[in-house]
C-alpha cells in the first residue's frame, strides 16, 4: 500500500472556494475523520434538542398541578427526550469518536469500508430527521398530530392502532429502524477495521483500551441492533398488515415485545457505556502520568461485561409478574455484572493512585465520571434486588439511577473526550477556564437534578406522569431538580461558548498537547487526510512513550 501524499490532491488542499463547494466536500466525504466529526456534531445538535425537551418536562413539574402543558405534550416530551438521547445522541457521538479515533489509534489510513461508513452516517441523520418530522407530519388520516407519545420503549399494546392513532408511532418505528441500519453498518465497520487493519506490531493486546472498547461495542451493536430491527418490523406488520404479534385481543403477547425489546435494550445500555469506559481509560493514565493499571483485567472485564449484558434483560421486567425463578436468575446475573464493573473502577483508582495528577478539564470530567458512575452503579445494585425494585419500579428513583449512569457516566465521559481530543480534531485547545466553569456547573447541576429524584421516587412519585398533587410533599424535591436543570443549562452554554470561541481563538495545540502515549498524538493536529506516512510500527502499548524515551522503552517490560 503506497500512498504518495505529495501527488494526491486532497480535500484540504483545494483552494478556499465558496461555501457551496465546502459543503459539497463534507457531504461527499468518505474520510473517517470528517465523518466522525459530523457524527459528533449531529449528536450534539440532537443533544441540545433533547435537552430542551427535558427543560419542558422540568418546567411542567416545577410546581404541583402546573397547568403549563397538557398531558399529551408531556408524553411527547419524555418520549422524544428518551428516544433522542439514546438513539440520536449517545450512539452517534460514541460511534463518531470510534470513527474518528480507531483508525488513528491502530495506525491505519481509514476505516475498512469508507463508503459504507459514509452511508451509515447519512442513514443515521435522515433517520433522526424522520423521527423529528413527526412533530409536523404525523397527523395521518385521523388528525391525531404530534410526536410519538408512547415512551422510549413503546410498550405494546399502547403502540397498537387502537391506542395510537395517526402516524406518530410509525415515525418513531421507521426513524429508529432507519438510524439502526446506520448503527449496524458502523458496528460492522468498527469490528472489521480493528480486526483487519492494525499497523505492524499492533497486536490485540497492545491496542489502547479505547480500541478494545470500540471492538466490543461493535460486536454488541451487531448482536443487539438487529433484534430491535426485528421487533420494529413486527410492530410495523401489526400496524399495517394486521398481524397479531402484540395484540392481546388477538392472542398476541405484550410480553414478547418487552422480552425482545429489552434483549436489545440492555446491551444498548452497554453500547452507551463501554465506549465511555474506553475514553476514561485513555484520559486517566495520561493525566495521572502513569501506565493504566491492570491492562489485562481491563480487557477481560470489558469482554465479561459485554458477554453478560446479553443475559440480564429481564431486570427491566421485574414488575410485570414473571415466574420467581426467572426473577431470581435475572437478579443474580444483574448483581454479578457489578463485579467486572467494579474491577474497572478499582483499576482506574489504581491508575490514579500515586500518580502525578494533572487537574486539566478532561481529567476533571474523568474523575467526575468515576464518582457519579459509582453512585449510579450502586443504585443499580439496589434496583437489581427484586423486592426493592417492586417498590420503586417506574418511579423517579429509576429515573435518577439511570441518569447517574448515562448522564454522570456516558455524558461526562463524552465531555471529557471532547476536551481531550478537540485539540487533535481542530488543532486548537479548548479554554481551560471556560472548561472548569462548564465542569463545575454541570457537576453541581447534575447532582442537584438527579440526586433529589431518588428521594421523590422513594416518596412515591411515578415517572411519566405530567403532574403531582400539592399535598404529597414532592414540591421541594421537584423544585430542586428543576433548579439543577437550570444550572446544567448554564453549564452547557459555557461549553457552547467555549467551542465557538476556541475554534477561532484557541491556543494552537501542536501534535501532542497532553504529552500522551497513544498513536493518534504522533500525527499532526488536525491529521492529514492520509493520517500517517509512512504507516507506524509499534512495539508496545505506549508507542509514543517508546519514541520519547528510547533509553527506557515500554517494550522491555510488556
Amino acid at each position, binding site marked *: 500500500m503506497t500512498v504518495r501524499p505529495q501527488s494526491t490532491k486532497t480535500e484540504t488542499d483545494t483552494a478556499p472556494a465558496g461555501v457551496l463547494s465546502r459543503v459539497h466536500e463534507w457531504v461527499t466525504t468518505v474520510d473517517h475523520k470528517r465523518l466522525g466529526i459530523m457524527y459528533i456534531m449531529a449528536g450534539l445538535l440532537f443533544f441540545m434538542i433533547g435537552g430542551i425537551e427535558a427543560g419542558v418536562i422540568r418546567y411542567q413539574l416545577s410546581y404541583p398541578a402546573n397547568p403549563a402543558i397538557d398531558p399529551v405534550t408531556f408524553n411527547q416530551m419524555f418520549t422524544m427526550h428518551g428516544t433522542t438521547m439514546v438513539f440520536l445522541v449517545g450512539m452517534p457521538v460514541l460511534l463518531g469518536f470510534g470513527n474518528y479515533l480507531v483508525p488513528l489509534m491502530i495506525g491505519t489510513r481509514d476505516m*475498512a*469500508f469508507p463508503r459504507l461508513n459514509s452511508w451509515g452516517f447519512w442513514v443515521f441523520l435522515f433517520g433522526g430527521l424522520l423521527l423529528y418530522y413527526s412533530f409536523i407530519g404525523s397527523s395521518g388520516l385521523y388528525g391525531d398530530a404530534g410526536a410519538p407519545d408512547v415512551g422510549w420503549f413503546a410498550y405494546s399494546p399502547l403502540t397498537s392502532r387502537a391506542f395510537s392513532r395517526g402516524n406518530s408511532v410509525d415515525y418513531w418505528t421507521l426513524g429508529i429502524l432507519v438510524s439502526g441500519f446506520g448503527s*449496524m453498518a458502523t*458496528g*460492522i465497520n468498527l*469490528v*472489521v477495521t480493528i*480486526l*483487519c*487493519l*492494525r499497523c*505492524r*506490531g499492533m*497486536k490485540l493486546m497492545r491496542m489502547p483500551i479505547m480500541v478494545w472498547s470500540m471492538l466490543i461495542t461493535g460486536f454488541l451493536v*451487531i*448482536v*443487539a*441492533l*438487529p*433484534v430491535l*430491527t*426485528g*421487533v420494529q*418490523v*413486527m410492530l410495523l*406488520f401489526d400496524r399495517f*398488515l*394486521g*398481524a*397479531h*404479534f402484540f395484540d392481546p385481543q*388477538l*392472542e*398476541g*403477547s405484550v410480553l*414478547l415485545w418487552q422480552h*425482545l425489546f429489552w434483549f436489545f435494550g440492555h446491551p444498548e445500555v452497554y453500547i452507551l457505556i463501554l465506549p465511555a469506559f474506553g475514553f476514561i481509560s485513555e484520559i486517566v493514565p495520561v493525566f495521572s502520568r502513569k501506565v493504566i493499571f491492570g491492562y489485562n483485567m481491563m480487557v477481560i472485564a470489558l469482554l465479561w461485561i459485554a458477554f453478560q449484558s446479553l443475559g440480564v434483560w429481564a431486570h427491566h421486567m421485574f414488575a410485570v409478574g414473571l415466574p420467581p425463578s426467572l426473577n431470581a436468575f435475572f437478579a443474580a446475573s444483574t448483581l454479578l455484572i457489578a463485579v467486572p464493573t467494579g474491577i474497572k473502577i478499582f483499576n482506574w483508582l489504581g491508575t490514579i493512585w500515586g500518580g502525578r495528577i494533572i487537574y486539566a478539564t478532561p481529567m476533571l470530567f474523568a474523575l467526575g465520571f468515576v464518582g457519579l458512575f459509582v453512585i449510579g452503579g450502586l443504585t443499580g445494585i439496589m434496583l437489581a434486588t427484586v423486592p426493592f425494585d417492586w417498590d420503586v419500579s417506574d418511579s423517579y428513583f429509576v429515573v435518577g439511577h439511570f441518569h447517574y449512569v448515562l448522564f454522570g457516566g456516558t455524558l461526562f465521559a463524552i465531555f471529557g473526550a471532547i476536551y481531550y481530543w478537540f485539540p487533535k480534531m481542530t488543532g486548537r485547545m479548548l479554554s481551560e477556564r471556560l472548561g472548569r466553569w462548564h465542569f463545575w456547573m454541570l457537576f453541581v447541576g447534575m447532582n442537584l437534578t438527579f440526586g433529589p429524584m431518588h428521594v421523590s421516587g422513594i416518596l412515591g412519585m411515578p415517572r411519566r406522569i405530567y403532574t403531582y398533587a400539592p399535598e404529597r410533599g414532592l414540591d421541594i424535591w421537584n423544585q430542586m431538580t428543576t433548579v439543577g436543570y437550570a444550572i446544567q443549562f448554564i453549564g452547557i452554554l459555557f461549553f457552547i461558548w467555549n467551542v465557538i470561541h476556541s475554534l477561532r481563538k484557541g491556543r494552537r495545540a501542536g501534535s501532542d498537547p497532553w504529552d500522551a502515549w497513544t*498513536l493518534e498524538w*504522533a*500525527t499532526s493536529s488536525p491529521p492529514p487526510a492520509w493520517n*500517517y506516512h*509512512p*504507516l*507506524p*510500527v*509499534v*512495539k508496545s502499548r505506549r*508507542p*509514543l512513550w*517508546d*519514541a520519547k524515551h*528510547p533509553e527506557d522503552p515500554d*517494550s522491555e517490560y510488556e
Partner: protein
Amino acid sequence: MTELTATHHAATTRDAGEPQHLSRGKVGISCLIITESFFFMCFIVAYLYYIVILQVDDGGPDPSVIFRADIMVYIASVTLLSSSVTVVLAARALAAGRHGRFRAWLATTLALGGFFLLATVLEWKHLIGDLGVWMDTSSFGTCFFSLVGFHALHVVIGLSALGLCLLLSLRGHLPQAQAERFEILSWYWHFVDVVWIFVFTSVYLLRVYI
C-alpha cells in the same frame, strides 16, 4: 514520527508479528451474518413461542394448513441445501480459473435456488389464494408469513447477487482475481441455507412431532 517507523526491519520483524492475514471482506460478511442471524432469531422465537409452545388457538387457520401441504417442501429443502454444495464447486472453479465450470455450477445453483423460490411461491399461492390465509387471519399466519417471508426475501437477494455474477462472468467481467469476492458471496448463500434449516425445523417439523 520517524522513530515510530521501522528502521531495522530485521530486528522488528519478529516483534512486529506477522502482517494481518484476515480479509476485510470475510470478516465483514461474518459480521453481517451474525447481525442477520439475530434478526431471524426474533421471528423464530415468535414462531416457537406462539405456535409451537403456546399453540395459540384463535379460531383462525392453524399450522394444519401446511402439514397437508405436500412433499414439495421437502424436495425444495433438499434442493436449497444442495445449492450450497454447487456454489462451493462454483467458487472453487473460479479460484482455479476454470470459467466454464464456474458458469455451469453457478447456473446450477441459480436453478436450484430458483426451484426453491418457485416452491415457496406455489405454497403461498395455495395458502393465500385458495385458503385465504394471511398475516391478519391468525397468529399462525402472522408468524408463518413473516418468518418464511423474510427467508424468501433473503433467497431473492442471494439469487440476485449470484445472477449478477453469472451475468458478469458471461460478459467476461469476473476474472479469477475476483474469486475471493465470489467466495464471500457464497458465504452469504450458505447463511441463507442454514437459516432455512432453522425455519424448516421450527415450521414444518416441530409441530408435527411434538
